């Protein structure tokens, strides 16, 4: 969470998006979720919605490669009412839509705020992309990068902006570690080396309440957002 600092790690100014809606109410906290294809981004979003929907007013924006696939997964599993889920087309290029030209995503977030708001939290999911895709600070207040142990235990060592700079690194599918020969201790050590003090969570969304640590982190962010 970088709201506490006026500049990022490179000394550049932080998010330019206004944090207040007209009327003076603080807008919803925006959290981005990125990561490689198949690491469990959509499953994380779905699990977070189930875990938090009773206590928070939530909405989701998906940035799919094929328009509506992730949005439809969320709809099919009824994690939120359909009017709280918006799919943004990205023209084959999700990382452009979340990083270089965020206008369509900003529109989507604002339209959700206008149609189903007031909102506490908006989750923005990136289409599965490579390790370099990160969200613009003009779009999100914090970002979660989701990788999984099945993708290989060397991903944390390889680094990249998502692994090293995300506000939370989630290493998903820990239950598969023995099956794919991934060493969680190595992953934790490499992540620490890449990320310094930034947190990393190991979890298995397939297990009951596997999302609890991530949900807890989101609650902390929201508390700080509201206090700020």
């Amino acid at each position, binding site marked *: 969470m970088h709201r506490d600092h006026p500049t990022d790690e490179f000394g550049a100014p932080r998010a330019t998006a206004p944090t207040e809606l007209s009327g003076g109410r603080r807008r919803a906290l925006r959290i981005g979720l990125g990561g490689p294809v198949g690491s469990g981004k959509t499953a994380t979003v779905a699990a977070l919605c189930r875990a938090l929907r009773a206590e928070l007013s939530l909405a989701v924006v998906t940035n799919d490669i094929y328009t509506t696939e992730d949005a439809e997964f969320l709809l099919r599993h009824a994690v939120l009412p359909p009017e709280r889920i918006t799919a943004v087309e990205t*023209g084959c*290029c999700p990382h452009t839509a979340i990083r270089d*030209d965020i*206008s369509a995503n900003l529109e989507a977030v604002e339209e959700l705020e206008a149609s189903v708001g007031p909102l506490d939290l908006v989750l923005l999911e990136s289409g599965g992309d490579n390790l370099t895709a990160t969200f613009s600070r003009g779009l999100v207040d914090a970002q979660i990068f989701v990788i999984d142990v099945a993708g290989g235990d060397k991903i944390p060592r390889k680094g990249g902006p998502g692994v090293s700079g995300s506000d939370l690194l989630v290493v998903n599918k820990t239950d598969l570690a023995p099956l794919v020969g991934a060493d969680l201790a190595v992953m934790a050590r490499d992540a620490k080396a890449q990320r310094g003090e930034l947190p990393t969570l190991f979890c298995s969304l397939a297990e009951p309440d596997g999302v609890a640590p991530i949900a807890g982190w989101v609650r902390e962010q929201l508390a700080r957002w509201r206090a700020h």
Partner: protein
Amino acid sequence: MSGALLLLADGRFPAGGHAHSGGVEVAVRAGLVKDADSLAAFLTGRLHTTGLTAAGLAAAAADGFDPTGLDEAADARTPSPALRATSRRLGRQLLRAARACWPDPVLDGLAAAHPGGAHQSVVLGLAARAAGLAPAEAALAAAHESVNGPATACTRLLGLDPYQVVAVLARLAPELDTVADAATRAAAEAVRRQDAWPLPAASAPLLDLFAERHSAWKVRLFAS
């Protein structure tokens, strides 16, 4: 003064254009655009129809024609509801970027008058005006936008050789100038007469058809 024009016309200007194919996604799926030659034919048609129309509206907006009247003229020149919605959405996204670049009460007024978005070409003209550009430059930016987006989309959709695609655009450059000239002259006449009638209203039947088909697709890569 051309520095601002380069910025406004840059495909990386964050105004949402990257996610739009200008109909080329349908043309590709229909097998009508499949290589550099058919892309060139597509872009030529687009430039001289909706590109010319957009250039006229942009030039008129940059020339001080009343934006409300231009917005109505743009509506009438866009019979496809899908294209009207796309144009307004892109107009709103462009206005967001333009207000960050060139703060201007006229842009604020446009945003207030059209909360759902004004037409993209009208916003482009007013953004150019706010940036200190001439109507001819606004027209050129609109003409460029009408072919640059679809060309980029085509590179992604077909995996065309990017050097072939950029060469297609280079060969079209003189026609961009011709279209921008015609649009600028028409805009000056419209301003002189205080009437949108002289503005080009060129249309292409297949672009309207493509836009409606595209909006009905369940699976698509581009927003339009």
